[in-house]
C-alpha cells in the first residue's frame, strides 16, 4: 500500500509528546481520543500516520505506549470499495426502470464487489506461488474464476481479453493511419495511466475506423490547415507524412 505506508501503526493510540496542533489523550484500555476534529474522523488516518511516523522515536521512549494491539481496521472507505456511483450505474442497467434500490443494498453490493475481487485474487495469487511466478496475470484471474465456480464468466472474459489484446496490437502496429499517432502520444502501452478514458475510443474496430477516420482527416487537413500541412493541398499525399500538429507550429 503506497499511500498508507504507516497504516498498520496504531494511529489513535500513540500519544504525541509535543503538543502542537494535535493532542491525543490516551486512556487505559480504550481508544484515546484526539481532540482535533480532523483526527477524530476515520478519513484522516493518513494524517495520523504521518504524525505517528514523525514521532516514532519519541513514542518509544514514552512509558505510556502500550504493547501493540491489533488496531481497529482503519481503512479509508473510498479506498477499499468500488465507487458507489459506478456500482449503482451497473445495477440500474440490469433493473427495470421502475425499480428502486435502497441505500443499504447499494452499500452491500459495493462491499460484495470488493470481497469478490479479494476472493478471486487470493486464488490467483496462490496459483502464481505454486508455479513460482511473481506476477498475477489476466489468465490467472480468469482461471481462478473458473476454479471458484464462476464458470459462466470464463468465456465472456476470455473473449473480452482477446479483443482487448487485439485492440492493443492494432493501436501500436505501424501500418495504422497516421492520425493515430496523435492518439498514441497520450497512451501508455497498457492504457492504464490517467487519461485511459479516451484510449480505447479509437483503438478497436479498426475495420470500421480506417475509412472513416482516413476520410475524415483528409477533408480536415485539406480545408482546415491551409498551407500548413506537408504535402500542401493534395490530400492524398498527406497521409504518409501527415503531421496533425503541423498547422499549430
Amino acid at each position, binding site marked *: 500500500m503506497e499511500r498508507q505506508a504507516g497504516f498498520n501503526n496504531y494511529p489513535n493510540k500513540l500519544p504525541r509528546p509535543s503538543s502542537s496542533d494535535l493532542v491525543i489523550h490516551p486512556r487505559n484500555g480504550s481508544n484515546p481520543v484526539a481532540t482535533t476534529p480532523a483526527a477524530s474522523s476515520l478519513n484522516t488516518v493518513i494524517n495520523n500516520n504521518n504524525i505517528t511516523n514523525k514521532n516514532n522515536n519519541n513514542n518509544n521512549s514514552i512509558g505510556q505506549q502500550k504493547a501493540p494491539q491489533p488496531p481497529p481496521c482503519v481503512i479509508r472507505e473510498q479506498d477499499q470499495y468500488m465507487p458507489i456511483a459506478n456500482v449503482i450505474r451497473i445495477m440500474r442497467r440490469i433493473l427495470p426502470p421502475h425499480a428502486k434500490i435502497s441505500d443499504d443494498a447499494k452499500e452491500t453490493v459495493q462491499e*460484495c464487489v470488493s470481497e469478490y475481487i479479494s476472493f478471486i485474487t487470493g486464488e490467483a495469487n496462490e496459483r502464481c506461488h505454486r508455479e513460482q511466478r511473481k506476477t498475477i496475470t489476466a489468465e490467472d484471474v480468469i482461471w481462478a474464476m473458473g476454479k471458484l465456480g464462476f464458470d459462466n464468466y470464463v468465456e465472456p472474459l476470455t473473449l473480452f481479453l482477446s479483443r482487448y489484446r487485439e485492440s492493443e496490437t492494432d493501436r501500436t502496429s505501424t501500418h495504422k493511419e497516421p492520425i493515430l499517432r496523435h492518439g498514441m502520444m497520450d497512451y501508455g502501452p497498457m492504457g492504464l495511466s490517467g487519461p485511459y478514458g479516451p484510449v*480505447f475510443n479509437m483503438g478497436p474496430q479498426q475495420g470500421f475506423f480506417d475509412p472513416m477516420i482516413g476520410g475524415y482527416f483528409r477533408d480536415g487537413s485539406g480545408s482546415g490547415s491551409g498551407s500548413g500541412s506537408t504535402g500542401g493541398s493534395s490530400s492524398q499525399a498527406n497521409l504518409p507524412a501527415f503531421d496533425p500538429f503541423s498547422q499549430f507550429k
Partner: protein
Amino acid sequence: MRQAGAYSGLVSASMSGRMGPHSLPLARIKKIMKKSGDDVKMISGEAPIVFSKACELFIQELTKRSWMVTMQGKRRTLHKEDVASAVIATDIFDFLVNLVSDESSNDNLAETPSEEMETFRS
C-alpha cells in the same frame, strides 16, 4: 482539432461491454487486489482490466438474483435483505455469506478476506 466521437464505430453487438472507458476504476481495483494478501506483489496490467469486466458481470448477476427475491416479495425496492437472500441461495456466492449476515452489526470487516477464503475453499 476535432476527433471522432467517443463511441462512434465502437458498438459491438456481442457483448454489452465496449472497449471504451471501463466502468470501474482500474487503480482502485488494483488497490483492492493488493490488499487481498500481503504476498500479492506484482499484478499485470491486464488483470485489473479483466476484473473490471468481471465485476460488472458479478454486479449484474448479484443484482438480478436479488431483484428476483424482491419481486417474489411483490416489492419494487431492492433491499439489503434481498441481496442477502440471493447470496444465501447461490452456491458460488458462499464466500459472501459472512459479509451479508455480519452487516447488521455494521462494523468494518474484521476478518481478512484470506481468512474467509480459507473457510470456503473446499
